[in-house]
């Protein structure tokens, strides 16, 4: 039987997956919402099926329609991409029960890791340090205050099923906790359907370091080094780099081993990412594991030379990894800038609309993962990611210079973007030195305001 993959996503990641499938000689089926009929992934896939109306709930989150599309087109594998249904336990379970394959770990593993409380317990069981916290959901404000007093402020209040920067609050005082608890819970309920919250110690100005994992069905689990994703706005990453300028070789190996240990302990399969916070003294804390391909996976691909999406698909079709841990070498430095349709000068207000003119950079070591084109209308319904500009160079300094030129040559006319902000960050001394942490963007935006 011919191999055929349904790509249950949109935007640049759908195109990224379509490319990998085509390179492997596999058939591709795209799904799309009514708002996305002119989207590039629809044009590039072998077949495309409309799965519903513009809002994600009716289309990209519409499990029944997506399963029907897969069955109707004769697909045997579903790649969920990132976001949408990629970490949805129920979706993975239904896919499995329909005798289709889900690109990712089993629904059971997704369930365990998707619940952040359970995930922390898994890490703890294999002696990987975690951030101190509530060891479970917090019932009410009083219980929250008690725990907070025990571990000390500042604390983080987080939704159990949260992600993407929503359902999360930093709390500095008891009075603030009392005020924010209910608000955060309702935000969690609105966004994730569950209002359960948990508490953890807030580590001030840590670096956000994540380790890429690949695991096949034959017990081979390897890591592909780390990515530094400390440049974030409201916990959403905007610039990532690999390797981290902060991590020394010894810590790199330790983090890699810790990530592999966690993955192996739960029988993790396919690609995944183990996220850590690393404080200024090099202490590391497990925070969560993402059971999907990450937006920022290309930088790891650039420095290791390993096509992660290709490996994901091969693993799903029961191939074994043909790389061993010893063969994974980190070459040079890769940077990724996310180009979003948003206005950084207006509180990052989204800026959908018509792209009148598009000019993309290029040249040696420049990679662009994007789904936009001239006269493409960016719909207002989905996330604002337009393109990922990825550069790869022998040294970090060269990569930064390459990125500056790439951003200078990137023109997206018609809508507002964060290109200029990214260009400025590429010149910021703290970024250039590599001494930034997760508080970077807030400080940077203040600096910009001052100099206006």
């Amino acid at each position: 039987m011919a191999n055929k993959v349904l790509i249950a996503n949109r935007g640049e990641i759908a195109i990224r997956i379509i490319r990998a499938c085509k390179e492997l000689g596999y058939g591709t089926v795209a799904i799309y919402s009514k708002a996305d009929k002119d989207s590039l992934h629809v044009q590039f896939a072998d077949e495309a099926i409309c799965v519903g109306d513009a809002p994600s709930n009716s289309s990209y989150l519409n499990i029944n329609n997506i399963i029907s599309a897969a069955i109707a087109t004769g697909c045997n594998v579903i790649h969920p991409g990132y976001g949408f249904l990629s970490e949805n336990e129920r979706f993975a379970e239904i896919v499995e029960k329909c005798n289709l394959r889900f690109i990712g770990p089993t629904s059971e593993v997704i369930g365990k890791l998707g619940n952040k409380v359970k995930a922390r317990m898994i890490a703890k069981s294999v002696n990987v340090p975690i951030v101190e916290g509530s060891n479970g959901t917090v019932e009410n404000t009083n219980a929250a205050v008690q725990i907070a007093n025990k571990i000390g402020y500042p604390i983080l209040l987080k939704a159990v099923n949260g992600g993407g920067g929503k359902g999360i609050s930093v709390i500095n005082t008891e009075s603030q906790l009392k005020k924010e608890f209910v608000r955060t819970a309702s935000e969690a309920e609105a966004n994730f359907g569950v209002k359960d919250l948990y508490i953890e110690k807030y580590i001030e100005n840590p670096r956000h370091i994540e380790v890429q994992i690949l695991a096949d069905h034959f017990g081979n689990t390897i890591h592909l080094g780390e990515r530094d994703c400390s440049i974030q706005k409201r916990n959403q990453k905007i610039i990532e780099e690999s390797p981290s300028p902060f991590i020394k070789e010894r810590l790199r190996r330790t983090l890699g081993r810790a990530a592999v240990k966690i993955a192996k302990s739960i029988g993790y399969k396919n690609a995944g990412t183990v996220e850590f916070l690393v404080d200024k003294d090099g202490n590391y804390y497990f925070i969560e594991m993402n059971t999907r391909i990450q937006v920022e996976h290309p930088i790891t691909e650039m420095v290791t030379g390993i096509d992660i999406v290709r490996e994901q698909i091969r693993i799903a079709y029961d191939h074994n990894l043909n790389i061993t841990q010893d063969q994974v070498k980190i070459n040079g430095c890769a940077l990724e800038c996310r180009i979003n349709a948003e206005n950084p000068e207006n509180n990052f207000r989204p800026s959908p609309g018509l792209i009148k003119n598009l000019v993309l950079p290029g040249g040696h070591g420049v990679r662009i993962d994007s789904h936009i084109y001239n006269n493409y209308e960016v719909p207002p319904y989905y996330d604002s990611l337009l393109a990922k500009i990825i550069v790869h160079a022998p040294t970090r300094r060269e990569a930064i210079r390459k990125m500056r030129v790439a951003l200078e040559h990137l023109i997206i006319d018609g809508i507002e973007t964060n290109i200029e902000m990214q260009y400025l960050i590429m010149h910021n001394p703290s970024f250039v030195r590599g001494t930034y942490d997760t508080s970077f963007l807030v400080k940077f935006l203040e600096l910009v305001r001052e100099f206006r």
Partner: protein
Amino acid sequence: MNKFFEERKIKVETFRDIRGRNKQPNKVAIPDGLFIKCDKCNEYIFGEDLKTNNYVCHHCNFHFRINARFRINITVDEDSFTELFSGIKSTNPLDFPDYDKKIDKYQKETDESEAFICGVGKINGIDIAIGVLDSFFMMGSMGSAVGEKVTSLIEYATLHNLPLLIFSASGGARMQEGILSLMQMAKTSAAINKHHNNGLLYLSVLTHPTTGGVAASFATLADIIIAEKGALIGFAGQRVIKQAIQQDLPHQFQTAEFQIEKGFVDTLCDRINLKDLIYRMLRIHGVKKNA
């Protein structure tokens, strides 16, 4: 042009200014004389390129003046030239003021002993006697030394049954030697006549400029007179003629093209095709290669 390119450029420039990174780079100093400006079209030509193109402008086909040595190099076969009569030099028979100094200066400048270089060589294997006037040496003027060298070359050609090829470029008779210079006109003409009477071929190439006593003697006594493109050919200067006859001169007066039209020269050729033309003339007139 789309305005967003301009907008982006301005922003990047402004940012660079703010960072103080808009330093002007040190200008690279190009060695003098690397590029040569064309006198006619004012384009700059890389010197090496101009040389490989025989000093003809790539853009407008303007023919730069070339010295006698270079002319010989591009005319005869490689390594076939043997110089003759190089020992004949000028004296200052009339004690003309500063004449010796002037000769001395030109000798140093051009590294030649006189304004005429001659010898024997081969054109695609055909033996010929060749002489070239050098316009860089006192404007190729003919004094007794030049006249003697020209005559000696003609007599050598007559003696050895060689066809004769002379490239002229001259302001005329050399005034510093007065009547002695003018006498060279008769002497060279007589020698040409003997060469002619022996049934030998004489080709004269008039290059820029060929005027005065040279134009009025051996240069125009050839069996075939070829003008190089862009050459000025005439006897007296244009200003002199204009004042003497009190009339405006015709369009393109004294140009090679003008002289063709008036029947004063036989054909016009550009530098690049000159050797080929000479070779064909020699072959047409029955000159054979010596085994």
